[in-house]
């Protein structure tokens, strides 16, 4: 398969030194047609060419909204690749990894945050970007190696991960359960966390977040079962339960499960064998555009993410299926 080029399909091809001129000219040409917007950030997508095909569309969509400058850099062996400028997006195709941070430094909007969307590549590149970026959102097929590097950079930049962002709703709903006094009281009796997932990395993040935040009793077990197809995580059960559908008197269970349409989550709480709360909530926008838009709203270090990653690096993944391939 031929990797798709990480360049906007339209726009003007210019040498690197002419990018600023080209962007300014574009603004003048568009004149009143370009709505005046307040800029909020630079978003940089970095990765190997074959991982940037989908990223082009996402970045251009964000940049077209007019509030971010999009920079797309595919790694290669070219020291001076031609740049393609289209509206608020600049694409550099095949740039040598050692020059990536230099290019970002030259092209990012000064005085505004820079968010790096890491789609893979050499881990050394991440070190240079950590100095420049305010946030780095990791999005790698097999992230454990880059997580191990990221752990050493947590003091330099704020890190996140696309998988982690997609777990936000699951985590929020789990947190809601623990607002219920009966659940807080029953927490000490919880013995097991069961996750049905297609993606073991997402399952591991969820499990690591929960077990690194709440101190469960010794012997507490995490069990990840393979659920091929569908979304990365499909069902989470936490509690002290027998495993059957019938609740016994001692059974405590918090359950989150994707509803049939996969746009909703069913939640239920059972305490002392009695189902005390159940509801359905929406999953929220899980598309890459939705996830990155959400990440642009976060400006500080995500300590919960850092704790979860550190736990996985230290303890490894729970037993489960093989890692998923990112879209």
């Amino acid at each position: 398969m031929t990797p798709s080029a990480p360049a906007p399909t339209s726009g003007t091809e210019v040498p690197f030194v002419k990018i600023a001129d080209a962007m300014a000219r574009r603004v003048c040409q568009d004149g009143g047609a370009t709505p005046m917007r307040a800029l909020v950030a630079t978003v940089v997508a970095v990765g190997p060419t074959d991982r940037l095909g989908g990223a082009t569309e996402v970045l251009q969509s964000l940049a077209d909204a007019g509030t971010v400058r999009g920079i797309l850099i595919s790694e290669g062996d070219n020291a001076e690749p031609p740049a393609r400028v289209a509206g608020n997006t600049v694409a550099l195709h095949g740039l040598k990894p050692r020059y990536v941070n230099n290019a970002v430094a030259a092209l990012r909007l000064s005085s505004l945050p820079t968010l790096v969307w890491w789609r893979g590549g050499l881990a050394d590149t991440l070190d240079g970007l950590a100095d420049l970026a305010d946030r780095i959102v990791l999005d790698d097929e097999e992230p454990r190696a880059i997580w191990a590097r990221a752990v050493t950079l947590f003091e330099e930049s704020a890190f996140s991960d696309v998988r982690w962002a997609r777990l936000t709703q699951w985590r929020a709903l789990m947190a809601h359960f623990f607002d219920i006094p009966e659940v807080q009281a029953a927490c000490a009796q919880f013995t097991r966390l069961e996750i049905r997932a297609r993606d073991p990395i997402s399952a591991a993040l969820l499990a690591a977040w929960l077990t690194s935040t709440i101190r469960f009793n010794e012997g507490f077990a995490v069990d990840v079962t393979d659920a091929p197809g569908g979304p990365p995580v499909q069902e989470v059960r936490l509690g002290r339960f027998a495993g059957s559908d019938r609740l016994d008197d001692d059974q405590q269970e918090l359950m989150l499960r994707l509803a049939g349409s996969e746009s909703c989550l069913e939640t239920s709480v059972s305490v002392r064998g009695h189902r005390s709360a159940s509801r359905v909530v929406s999953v929220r926008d899980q598309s890459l555009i939705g996830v990155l838009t959400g990440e642009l709203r976060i400006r500080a270090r995500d300590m919960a993410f850092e704790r979860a990653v550190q736990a996985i690096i230290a303890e490894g993944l729970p037993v489960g299926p093989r890692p998923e391939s990112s879209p």
Partner: protein
Amino acid sequence: MTGNPLHDGLRLEPTPGPTTLVIFGASGDLTRRKLLPALYRLSHRSRLPAQFAVIGVARSAMEDEAFRAQFRESLREFAGPDAEWDEVAKSLASQMYYLSGETSDPGLYQRLATRLKEIQGAEGVLFYLAIPPTIYATVIEQLGAANLATQPERGWRRVIIEKPFGTDLASARELNQIAHRHFSEDQVYRIDHYLGKETVQNLLVFRFGNGMFEPVWNRRYIDHVQITASETVGVEHRAAYYEGAGALRDMVQNHLMQVLSLVAMEPPIAFTAESVRDRKLDALLAVQPLVDVGDSTRTGWGVVRAQYGAGWVNGAEVPAYCAEPGVNPASTAETFVAARVLLDSWRWAGVPFYLRTGKRLPKRTTEIAIQFRRPPLEIFRRASQTSVVPDLLIVNVQPDEGISLRFDAKLPGTRMQIAPVMMNFRYGTTFGGEVPEAYETLLLDAMLGDPTLFARHDFVETSWALMTPVLEAWRSQPGPIPTYEAGEWGPAQADELIAQDRRRWRTL
């Protein structure tokens, strides 16, 4: 385990603990138009607690299922094009219950207490008085008598009271006294939906989160402030209420005074409810009496009232206020108010705040315009054919929430020509996503126990202390009230009010 550590982390927004919302006036307009759609959106954003229920209370006889059907209808009509009768809505509907009865009947409150005991999640109970103001006192007294107002050992009880809070100073004081007999002040949430708007909240951030604006936010740099809240609609279906209220009670006493206090307040020492509300109260206490009896240099008062006549709005012919259904043909209710407000404070001495609000005006907008002084020396007057216009900061409260700054710039070219330019910041486009509706923000804040965006008893009374002399003076003036043509920016007297200071209203 103390607290809930799973909420730690900025990504997860705060969510209330188990809550039951009891809406008095459940079959009414406010519930259908605002409250039920707000609950739906909060549910979609996962901001409602895991244990949450709604009990609707109203006079109409209705079963739970009929109330749920009303919720569905409300979504269809008022929740916007994206709202669907989806799984989330159905799940929320399944947590809705209904009680019918007379608000004066103690039996209703006994049944309510029983129902609350049956419902999971009634540790926190929020009573919402979406009822006519004339029965606020009755409901509060009955809640107290039924022991529903007392804070339980585990959980909380709060009450949201809609505007208008009283009709004058005496009635507001009386209502506060009744409320305080049964609820402590920290249980009482007097709602003013203007305070739930993002831009109004952003005023605090804009002023006190930035270092560059506050130094010029005073009499030395600001010439005057204009606060406008204009509507294109007429009295619509609210004639019964509006006939007894008028624009001063409906808009100025609450919304405009809240906005004015946010613009004029001194910096709070912390972003806490009491600190912010203390400083807002200070600003209001500094307002000079609005009935301008002692100033011989001015003609009349600092307040102008008028009523709309027939005219054209948005391309349609509309009747005069007096010809609207339900309105007394000889009504003297004002549909327009303009006021010149001065503050006795070091910061604002000599800086007028011009307020105007009205129905059937040409455009629906709410904005705060801060006009800065001209430069002390106009050095470009001879060189440029165009004159320098004063800098202007505009805070758009609605419909297009954002902030704009107008300043002068040189037109490109060899000649010195100056033209005003505008820099715009818009919530809708800059941050993407939906801006929460005011009622979503305020309902959530009340459930979370954050009263920052609600009016405190002393603010309400101070505001009424300013309005009551105006109302009394108007009452003592017999004869017809001035009119303005629907679709115009108010009566000529409003223009004269500001023209006396050699200024003019902004053209919006």
